[in-house]
């Protein structure tokens, strides 16, 4: 179980796209307790789909016949490099397309935000029959195209530059594991293509203050060399922001909160060393100023090893074991 499970869900969700896409559940390296070994590089592609028909306008749950079902397709490219066994660098870039099944609004598409993380395995300790590991993870995301953030819910993102800090603990005994993490996200102001906007008062500027965010995430399940299967619970809060007014459109600095639950799997093939398939789905149980999304995604990853002079980890060379979690 060397690898990585990298899906767009956090790439996008942990950072920007809360309207279109509340944070998901699929295992991913920036929020799971799996490390790449030194000089191994895991790279992969994912496809994700997220859709909602109902949404919360503040606390009022409604549908909108002028939107129908709003869906988002995400094509993600991701990588994770082992700088050392205990320090990984992760990177991801999604291409996003939005679509509304009813009404007249034009879908939007484009490259969204480049995300990077440093993930540090700070501590590993045998406790009882299992292993406790602690992680510190720092993330940065920046928009890479001039997409329009104030055309929600069709916008492909919120266009802020974000920094996140996360602490995470994982405990594994036998093939059972549980991981819990808490994340704080600083968000920069954004600039929109308007010279004024109304939140709870009129702002005569194109700058929008984006409140910071916090979240926690708990995941538990089965984890072996070959297979990971987990259930995930995620709670996201916007620390400030305002509610969508009755029959208004959403705005990037809304108070977007979401509670989601889902399942993920990752299967590592025997036949081709270093190749794995990931997938998962989740559902938004509750929210505020977000869509009640159902989301799923699937991805394929492959490990390249630069440990020896040979380029491929798959040619006879067994990918390195993760430094933790080995029984």
């Amino acid at each position, binding site marked *: 179980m060397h690898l990585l499970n990298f899906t767009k869900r956090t790439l996008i969700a942990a950072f920007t796209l809360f309207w279109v896409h509340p944070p998901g559940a699929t295992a991913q390296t920036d929020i799971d307790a799996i490390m790449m070994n030194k000089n191994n590089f895991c790279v992969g592609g994912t496809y994700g789909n997220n859709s909602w028909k109902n949404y919360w306008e503040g606390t009022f749950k409604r549908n909108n016949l002028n939107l129908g079902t709003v869906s988002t397709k995400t094509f993600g490219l991701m990588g994770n490099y082992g700088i050392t066994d205990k320090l990984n660098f992760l990177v991801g870039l999604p291409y996003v397309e939005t679509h509304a099944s009813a009404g007249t609004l034009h879908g939007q598409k484009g490259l969204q935000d480049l995300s990077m993380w440093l993930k540090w395995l700070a501590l590993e300790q045998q406790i009882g029959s299992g292993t406790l590991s602690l992680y510190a993870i720092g993330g940065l995301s920046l928009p890479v195209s001039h997409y329009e953030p104030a055309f929600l819910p069709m916008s492909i993102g919120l266009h802020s530059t974000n920094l996140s800090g996360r602490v995470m603990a994982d405990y594994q005994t036998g093939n059972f594991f549980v991981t819990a993490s808490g994340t704080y996200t600083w968000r920069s102001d954004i600039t929109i293509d308007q010279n004024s906007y109304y939140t709870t008062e009129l702002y005569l500027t194109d700058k929008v203050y984006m409140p910071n965010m916090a979240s926690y995430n708990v995941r538990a399940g089965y984890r072996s060399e070959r297979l990971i299967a987990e259930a995930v619970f995620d709670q996201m809060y916007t620390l400030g922001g305002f509610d969508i007014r009755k*029959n208004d459109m959403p705005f990037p600095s809304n108070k977007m909160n979401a509670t989601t639950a889902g399942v993920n799997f990752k299967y590592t093939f025997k036949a081709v060393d270093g190749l794995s398939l990931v997938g998962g789905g989740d559902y938004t149980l509750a929210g505020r100023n977000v869509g009640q999304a159902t989301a799923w995604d699937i991805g394929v990853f492959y490990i390249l090893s630069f440990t020896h002079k040979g380029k491929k980890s798959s040619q006879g060379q067994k990918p390195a074991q993760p430094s933790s979690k080995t029984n």
Partner: protein
Amino acid sequence: MKLHKISTAGLMILTLVACNKSVSNRTANIAALTPGSEDINAGGWQTVLLTRPDTFAVAAPAATNSTAYIADLNEIKGYQHSLTSDQEATIKYWSAGGVLRWNEILRGLVAKYNLPPYQNADGSYPIPSSANPFAYPQYPFANPPYAARAYAYIAAAQYDALVACWHYKTLYNRPAPYTVDSTIQAKVPKTTLPAYPSEAAVLAGVTAEMMKLLFPDEIANIQQLAQQHELSVIMSGAAARSDVTAGEALGRQIADVFIARGRTDNTSKAVGTQAQWTNLQTIAINNGQIPWYSLETPQRPPMLPFFSLVKPFLFDSATVASFRPGPPPSTGSDTLKQDAQEVYNIVKSPASGNMKIVQFWADGAGTYTPPGHWNAIAAEDFITQNFSEVRWARNLALLNMAEMDAAIVCWDIKYFYFNPRPTQMNPAIKTLTGIPNFPSYVSGHSVFSSAAATILSHILPQNQAKYQAMASQAAESRLMGGIHYRVDCEVGLTVGANVGNYAVTRAEGDGAE
């Protein structure tokens, strides 16, 4: 250690992000208004509704050596003795100009109230009613025509009130407290303009009173702001309590003239009835045209279809129909098919930069509307001109009377032709902004923008090229957004210029130039 480097880099980035976290209004910290000219003869400028500047009497003020006035001065000294930082901030805020600040406040109210009502369970829509305060749907729905009218009534009332104010200022010629008593500080730039009656209080009074007509749920909030405005000029040493009392009373009396007009200007007829809405369809069908229908689900009644009946400011109601251009291409014609195809081609894969332009001019639900956008453009240019308060009011009155009359004329054309939007003719046309819930021909943005650019170009001729370019871009943004045919925008610009010229004619004859 690597970690140390990482955390240092992280901290630096964090600091950068943190530093970026300050959003303030463009006009938050502008300097105090320092008029280039006090326009001391403005008491003779042509008023809008008042027949004479002294229609409402203002009693002669007490002499500056009277015990009553000395008590006024002591009140000021009391405030100035221990001004809090909040009070200083209030003085600074209002010192930028009362007309400017009230215009900004009004734009905020329009944005707050510019939301279409949510449908009833049966798919019908509730109609906002002033008889039902503080209930949903909120009253008013400050859509573009309503907003244009609100901006115009308030701007025109402020203008008439300040003309009357200037009349009495020169008549009584009582100086400002800081001039009478050298121990009173001037917390704002000193002026030789007589202080009685206070122009700030005239503005506060007239504006607060106008809320009874326009935003009845906001009377209490605006009353607080009016008091704050008045107190700010007292604390600043620019006006005595008696200057303020006389000014507020004058302002409120003049507002009543405008309110009386507003209650009988046919706005109450603008919504219409189901039978009237159906009749609009019948007329179009009888003319061999496909009638407009609402593209919202559930279908929403058309926005203010009889706003054309509202009494204009710059010309009489009989003139409204004279602005009507020829008809748009027939809905059955090849020309219209080609026009719709053009819209489809433009919006199918939007050119780079189009979204930005569409968004910049969208001014849709929840915003201060296109007339509000032109008020913002005007106000930010006026700030650089050091106009007196009365000239500020005059210029915004000209702009907003043009915008209101543009709304009346444009709505007349829209409902006279009842022409479908491009998406109605070709549902494959998806739009980059919401489709407004009224007929296509001619574009409201084009009419508003061209009318505004025309009068603003007269007021600030050095900006003519800029205003014309902005109006053209605003018009074109509606084609780029997929919500208008090209002809709607082009003809709309012409119609708007024709309306704007009435404001120019008025400006040339009002005595201010």
